[in-house]
């Protein structure tokens, strides 16, 4: 059964172990493909990791003039092939999530490929392997989409165009405050 990334923002501590871990996957050339952002710096310590969302119909691959971005049988959107990529950055502009980067020196695109080296052998990607807080998990796609442990999002509306992603995001429960996740109220003193 195909497995995907499930990311529970609430748990992220911004430690970037995922970023350093990503470098450890063979085939990543010691170049990380994971990003971690501060959600509201100065207000809170909340952070979130951003890997590729592995879109069901990936704009990056569709926009690539030389078809360098392959989609694996399990749906993983791979990094551009070294041989084919011409470094044109079309993918960077096309991706609504801003994921593909281009190495300006080597003139080649690189992005999260879910550690295909590992996942194709049945092991979790490095980010999901090392993440110390279980923020990033490697789970069954069908299960996480049909019976999520909390409210999740995997459909995104970009001005009327709905994009379904294989990466699933667990949303902070600010309403019932089940985990007390209060954005930015700081300390009281």
């Amino acid at each position: 059964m195909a497995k995907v990334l499930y990311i529970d923002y609430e748990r992220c501590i911004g430690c970037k172990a995922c970023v350093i871990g990503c470098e450890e996957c063979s085939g990543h050339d010691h170049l990380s493909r994971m990003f971690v952002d501060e959600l509201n710096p100065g207000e809170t310590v909340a952070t979130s990791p951003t890997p590729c969302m592995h879109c069901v119909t990936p704009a990056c691959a569709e926009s690539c003039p030389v078809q360098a971005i392959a989609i694996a049988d399990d749906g993983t959107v791979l990094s551009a092939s070294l041989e084919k990529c011409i470094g044109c950055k079309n993918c960077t502009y096309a991706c609504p999530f801003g994921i593909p980067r281009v190495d300006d020196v080597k003139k080649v695109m690189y992005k999260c490929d879910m550690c295909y080296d590992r996942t194709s052998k049945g092991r979790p990607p490095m980010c999901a392997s090392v993440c110390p807080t279980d923020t990033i998990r490697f789970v069954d796609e069908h299960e996480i989409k049909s019976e999520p442990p909390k409210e999740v999002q995997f459909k995104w509306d970009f001005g009327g165009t709905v994009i379904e992603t294989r990466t699933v995001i667990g949303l902070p429960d600010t309403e019932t405050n089940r985990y007390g996740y209060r954005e930015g109220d700081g300390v009281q003193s």
Partner: protein
Amino acid sequence: MGHAQNKDYAQRDYDAILRDGEELISTHCCFCGMQCGMNIRVNKEDKSVLGVEPRYDFPMNGGRLCPKGVSAYRQAEHVERLNHPLIRKNGKLEQATWDEAMDLIVSKIQEIQGKYGKDAFGIYSGSSMTNEKCYLMGKFARIGLGTKNIDYNGRYCMSSASVGFNQSIGIDRGSTNPWSDIKFADVLLIAGSNTAECHPLSMPYIWGARDRGAKLIVVDPRQTKTALVADVHLDIRPGTDVAIANGLLHVMIEEDLVDHDFIQKHTTGFEELKELVKKYTPAHVSEITGVAVDKIITAARLFGQAKNGFTMFARGVEQHATGTDSVSNYVNLCLVTGKMGRKGSGVATFTGQGNGQGGREHGQKTDQLPGFRKITDPKAREYIAGVWGVDESEIPGPGLSAFEMLQALGKEIKGLLLICSNPIVSSPTVGDVGEYLKSLDFFVCMDFFLSESAEQADVVLPSTVWVEDNGTMTNVEGRVLRVKGIDRTPGETKRDWKVICEIAERLGRGQYFQFNSPEDIFNELRVASKGGTADYYGITYEKLDKMQGVFWPCPTEESEGLPRLFEDLKFNFPDGKARILAFEHKGPNEKTSKDYPIILSTGRVVFHYLSGNQTRRIEALRNFCPDPYVEIHPNLAKKYNIEHGEFVKVSSPRGSIELAAKVTKITREDMVFVPYHWGKSLAINHLTNPALEPKSKIPEFKVCAVKLEKIASRAGEKHG
């Protein structure tokens, strides 16, 4: 998976990937007390270290690692590793041979001890070393050198927890329960611990409890990531832990949320506590701590009403002039509500240093002999003398504690051996500490990088790094585990234990140090600890492998160790009853004043470890957090007209430091926070107060009084 004791842990069902031409060395992280398991990828041919591969089957972390753990292996081939012995010649450290270095060391030891007596040569040891090395240092001090002056940097770290646990429950194991028990708590009270950043691998357990519906109470002056997700965040003024615990106790007693049966059968001292906390009403406590009344009441109810629960704490509670009181007072919360001795109920302190636990058990603490024996106890002395094959009178008495020892340098102590520590960054008033070190007649240091302290030494000996180490460590739970090294000693590096044995040999004490391997040392340690509180006698290397670590006490060969203490509710006192102790709030040693109106607190960031000697050299970690900074609340920043990123001079009565401002709402308005992992002009310990806790001798790192002055912003410089 594996042994039954590991059933509820976080391991995962995957195999590690093995790549062509490589072998995997399964070992443990060298940093914090979680002691996460990992595989090191090693080139089969030349034994070079290539990378890290998750070790999914180790129960504690199941392959997960924090950024320090992921990048730790990068030290192994680091260009700055020390490769040769160094001797100071004409003021400069120059390459030397081992013979030259050893000759010099031995002649200096003899000269100093001949002139000033045995105790004039001291050892300042560390707690990030294997149990074998820690044990060896204690033995080497007492019968190799014959000095009473040995202490270790764990004095700065866990000593208040140690005293607190001993006086309340009679045993100093950092956790009464296996870590997997955390998942079964209904309430978790975490105090003075930025768990998410300092012990990230505890988070799966905390989330495990949360997923089951457990409530989380966090006591911390800052809204750390741990506090951000808490049900109640008690945002206390630093140094008011005794008061907040008294407030919680007050409400629980008042609302009858205590366990009378447990109190009556298994504790003493409740009546005194009840009497004392009467005046600690929520309103009064709110005044002292700055925490809103309703939050105090809510927290007390959440804790009191829950069936099972933990109180857990760390340096934020311990590094105070009243650290031991605070520890015992947090233990009181569990004692009065009967949360002890069950799955999901107990107390724990987060171990800061890799082997903070084992390091304090086997006799490198100045007041202790192996197995947690008191050095002043005649029976203990006699037993250890027997193990060591010496006369009881040959074992010296207690000497000076870590910071006292530094203060005595150049005075009672003329020569110093420093191993595995960097006191010139980690001590309070580091400016003075630099002067103390300079006043030594002779200073020898063993390390694998040239730390700020090593830079001042007369002789520096190059050690192996942790991936080359073989031995055991004891983690945050009290689980003794096996560290397996790569069999190599690059350049002219040597293993610490061999160096120590060789010095002993040259001093004519070699007969007591006939060890051929760490396992030899461990086997002697087992006997030395036999019958002591931390009894390792039944633990063997074989058992450690088979069970993925063994919990102490493990007194016999048949025993499999004791993951959960006090299931029989017999505490470690002759009457079997735990001690409920009552404490008045005294507050920090240094109070704020007109001249120094703001509280300074210090702590860690997730990217660095202790003095930063190791992590600052790992590029990835350094890039994520290159410099220290001062966290200032927006309202406080406004008062001083400080903008985010601007430089600020922070001064205490002892010194000052210039730092970039990080303006953030996560910290209180009456305080500032600075991380402590940098040396020289960036060491925040220039400012901290050297006041010592009277019982544990821990310095009051967590509170001192400072003032802020804005300085002209420097163009082009960014804050970290």
